[in-house]
């Protein structure tokens, strides 16, 4: 069964008195384990599509199923719970809480999943270890580099073991070397079975995905499959940053 099923989905906004069709009849299936890149100019509807996939929004019309559940029929609380269990978000802006440590940021989804503090700590540290930042657990976001912050965000997205990872321009704020490391991490997670959907406008990033959707004016105008290019670190990481673990991530516990 598909993890995501969209059938003739419309999403319209009122902008003043004018109706804006952000999504104009989108149909899409994403199978478990797929890695999908969504491309398109700004205003093409790719962010709206992401918000729908992440249960942050509801369609104006059409069926939108996530893990077999129809978003149109879920209450706000049920959507919150679905976001908590099934979806992990990675944002361009990282969106870490600035005043709490990396570990506490990673624990956040578990707080709302009502996991006990001890278990929360254990799982947060495991997730941080998985992105190679176990040594940085007690650091505040502003004590971390951009790439490290994004890896904390990825750890947070993974910590409650979702099936779907949504990444909105995950490398948009990073330099090219750091971008490659983040992409390598995401690819590795994909190989371990995580379904990955990311929005990007960089073809360079999209070529790491096995499937590329191009959107224009609220519609999917092309849907191509390709052999993804392996993201590799083209130079060794400095020894002090513990980044070498990226290529040796282990399977989730």
């Amino acid at each position, binding site marked *: 069964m598909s993890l995501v099923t969209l059938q003739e989905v419309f999403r319209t906004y009122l902008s003043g008195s004018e109706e804006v069709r952000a999504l104009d009849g989108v149909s899409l299936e994403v199978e478990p384990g797929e890695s999908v890149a969504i491309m398109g100019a700004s205003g093409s509807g790719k962010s709206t599509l992401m*918000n729908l996939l*992440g249960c*942050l*929004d509801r369609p104006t019309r059409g069926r939108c199923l996530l893990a077999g559940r129809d978003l149109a029929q879920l209450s*706000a*609380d049920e959507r*919150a*719970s679905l*976001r*908590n*269990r099934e979806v992990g*978000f990675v*944002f361009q802006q990282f*969106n*870490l*809480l600035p*005043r*709490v440590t990396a570990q506490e940021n990673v624990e*956040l*989804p578990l*707080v*709302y*999943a*009502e996991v006990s503090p001890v278990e929360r700590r254990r799982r947060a540290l495991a997730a941080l270890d998985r992105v190679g930042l176990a040594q940085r657990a007690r650091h505040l976001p502003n004590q971390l580099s951009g790439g490290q912050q994004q890896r904390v965000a990825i750890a*947070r997205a993974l910590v*409650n073991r979702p099936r779907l990872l949504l990444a909105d321009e995950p490398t948009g704020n990073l330099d090219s070397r750091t971008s490659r490391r983040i992409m390598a991490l995401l690819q590795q997670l994909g190989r371990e079975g995580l379904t990955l959907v990311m929005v990007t406008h960089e073809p360079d990033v999209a070529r790491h995905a096995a499937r590329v959707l191009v959107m224009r004016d609220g519609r999917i105008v092309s849907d191509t499959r390709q052999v993804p290019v392996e993201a590799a670190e083209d130079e060794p990481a400095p020894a002090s940053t513990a980044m070498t673990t990226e290529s040796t991530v282990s399977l989730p516990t």
Partner: protein
Amino acid sequence: MRRRETLRIALGALRRNRLRTVLTVMGVVIGTASVLAMVAIGTGARARVAATFEAMGTHMLIVLPGSIQAGGLQGGFGTEATITWGDVAAMATQLPSVQAAAPVLRTSRNVQSESDNWTTLVVGTTPAYFVIRDWRPRLGRLLDESDESSGAKVVVLGQRVVERLFGAHADPVGQRVRIGRIPFVIAGVLAEKGQSPMGQDWDDMVFVPGSTFRAKMQAGLGQFVDGVVLLRAVAADQTTRSRSQVESLLRERHRIAPGGDDDFSVRDLSEIATAQRQGARVLTLLLASIAAVSLLVGGIGITNIMLVSVTERTREVGVRMAVGARGRDIQGQFVAEALVLALAGGVAGLLLGVLAAWLMARAFHWPLVLQPMVALAALGFSAVVGVGFGIYPARRAARLDPIEALRFE
């Protein structure tokens, strides 16, 4: 989400903005403290008024004889003796709401000890007088029935008179004094009572049996009482009833036709006491409401700062929602913050208020009246303020659209 978790998040947020938290709490501290202090001041004042009137006798009534008409001029009350000894006895025995009645005959006389002399007020009365006033002896005894029936030459002194004639710490019981030229034996000394609310010194008096007074000092008016009559009602709340019973009894005994003018008048001290107490109560209420306004201002301070906090943390709210926080989790988090602010203010205000009340009680020599109910109410009120003024910003936060919130700069 668990309550403890909510509290932990709220405390964390408050700790990170320490100065802002302290300033916001100050508003509630001042509000709570002033409510408490004002109520304590009001109750203290009331207790003092009550104590003053208690000393005067809240159970007390005074019957004044009527006026005379001379050549078209209407004299005031007390210008003519109209109350008889029979009236006094009848009031004391026939009225269920009257516990005791005593005549008060007064004159000014010079009193002499071996070494000194002092002019003071001499009161001729019966033992019932001390029951009515609720006065007790400091030394010796009060006047009794046998003094009255035998016309004994005994006297009870007020403390001021003892000071003048014998010295403050002397025990003059059993010694002799002369009142005018007549020797009296000192039977007792009254406990010190201070001044009346009208400024009369209750201790600058001496008391002799009414019969002795009439026989030796001021020949009476036969069957009429040459003075006033003091009455004591059986209870403080019975004074009004006593008053009407006394009035109808005297009208009947004096054969005053319905609609005719009374030849006497009854004064009720409890009226004055009630008016004063009422005044103090209004004062308390006024002070407390002014203080409550400051608590309200403190509450608005909480709303204000919570609104700022919600706006500042819009992105945080978006992130929390994206990772699975429900609207009620977000609302709970902000309400908990407001509640912690208000309760912290409430507890600190409680301590400050008690301190202020204590200082003022000392400064004004008032009794320190602290009612646990008021303290609890102040705490409860501050909690209500916290929730009441925190709920609006919290609702706003809970209703944020996560998509918009995540985009918020």
